[in-house]
């Protein structure tokens, strides 16, 4: 399934492949003493560094974990850490920017005759589809992002970037500026729906994220009058409930 392979590149972002990995190895070689003292292999990729950080966040809490703690546990220097992430707050977000750009291109490439809200649903479901082996990490990532008060303010910047992608797409489709009321509103609405799906997903260990995301977007369609075929289960379900 090539789509999945692309989707999970959130973990292995393009910028790891532009010479930074090499730079990391050289830089890390400068701190072999710390690495061997820590008794574990020093990390050589962004994903590995992220996993080491997630373990520390789980053990001692996000706020009490410092960049130095993460670097030490990863067997790398502080400066090397900053080659991978600009700040501790950026660690849970992984390669979000890269994935966001992919969603922007995906929306652009969808057929123009596809109804607006259906296009948004398709793009959001794709954006939130991960390979099975990525799912446990993604749960930890989203738990951090949605449930760490100290991250909220930082996250608003990322949310704004996400909404902007939706807003630009809506604006283009309906012939308005991205910051006009309707495109802006649809950005906030889509984000709200995605957060609703994520909250359900984090509550249920066996839930499928893509399915939930799809249902949530279809229920939005049902609740607001329906732009999707009534045969769509989520929309029909919501419509039935709303007319009851």
């Amino acid at each position: 399934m090539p789509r999945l392979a692309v989707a999970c590149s959130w973990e292995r972002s393009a910028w790891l492949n532009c010479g930074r990995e090499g730079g990391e190895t050289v830089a890390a070689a400068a701190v072999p003493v710390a690495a061997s003292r820590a008794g574990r292999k020093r990390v050589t990729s962004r994903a590995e560094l992220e996993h080491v950080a997630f373990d520390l966040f789980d053990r001692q809490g996000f706020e009490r974990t410092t960049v130095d703690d993460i670097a030490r546990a990863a067997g790398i220097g502080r400066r090397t850490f900053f080659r991978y992430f600009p700040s501790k707050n950026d660690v849970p977000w992984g390669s979000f920017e890269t994935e966001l750009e992919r969603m922007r291109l995906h929306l652009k490439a969808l057929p123009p005759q596809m109804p607006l809200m259906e296009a948004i649903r398709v793009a959001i479901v794709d954006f939130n589809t991960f390979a099975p082996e990525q799912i446990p990490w993604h749960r930890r990532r989203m738990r951090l992002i949605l449930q760490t008060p100290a991250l909220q303010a930082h996250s608003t910047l990322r949310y704004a970037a996400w909404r902007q992608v939706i807003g630009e797409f809506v604006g283009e489709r309906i012939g308005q500026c991205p910051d006009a009321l309707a495109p802006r509103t649809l950005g906030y609405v889509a984000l709200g729906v995605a957060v609703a799906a994520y909250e359900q997903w984090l509550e249920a260990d066996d839930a499928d994220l893509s399915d939930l995301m799809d249902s949530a977007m279809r229920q939005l369609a049902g609740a607001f009058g329906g732009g999707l075929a009534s045969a769509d289960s989520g929309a029909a379900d919501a419509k039935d409930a709303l007319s009851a």
Partner: protein
Amino acid sequence: MADAGNTAATEQDLPQQAGPGRPPSTTRRHLQDIAIEMFSTQGYDEVTIEALAAAAGISRRTFFRYFSSKADALMADFDEDVERLRAVLAGGNPDLPLMDAIRTAVVEVNDYHADDLDRLRQRLLLQHSNPALLANGILHYEEWQAVVAEFAAGRLGRQPGDLLPQVIARSVFGAAYAGFMSWLADERGDLSPRLDDALRAIPGAFQAQPVAASRRGPPAGL
């Protein structure tokens, strides 16, 4: 806007507490005015609860009768809106379709007057200039969404935590917040029509025709 120099009321000036229960909202609002003024001029991080309380002529202990934190002092109007929203939804016409009931309630509750709009603008600006205030605001927004989810769940015969009530609550809040942000960006006109437009934009988007189709000229052959 209250002048900080004139707000050093004595404790006797404030409405007396009548035992436990919700303190009078006028006092909360008075403290909110002082908080907005002090946070704006001195910076949120520089203002202590002691200083806030002193400016209002009350003790730190009394401050905590009204708000549980310094950041909460900014949210008095919003907290009141949450309770009004709950009341308006509960008292609305049960024959009104669910989404119309929610839209009209949100618009009604946000019928801010000029003075209130000034406070609203200052609150939003403060929140966007300070991470702690923003994070605290988000907690209060959760309450607002919980009110909508409870109402929707009641109408739908579901639990407030179910997906559909949550989708409704979060999308309605998203639209309303977009209305606030849009109003804040240009400050033209009243807030409530903007919220109405934002909430109507959601069903509108489901009807949207691609621009390419509508821009197409008359059919060939004419």
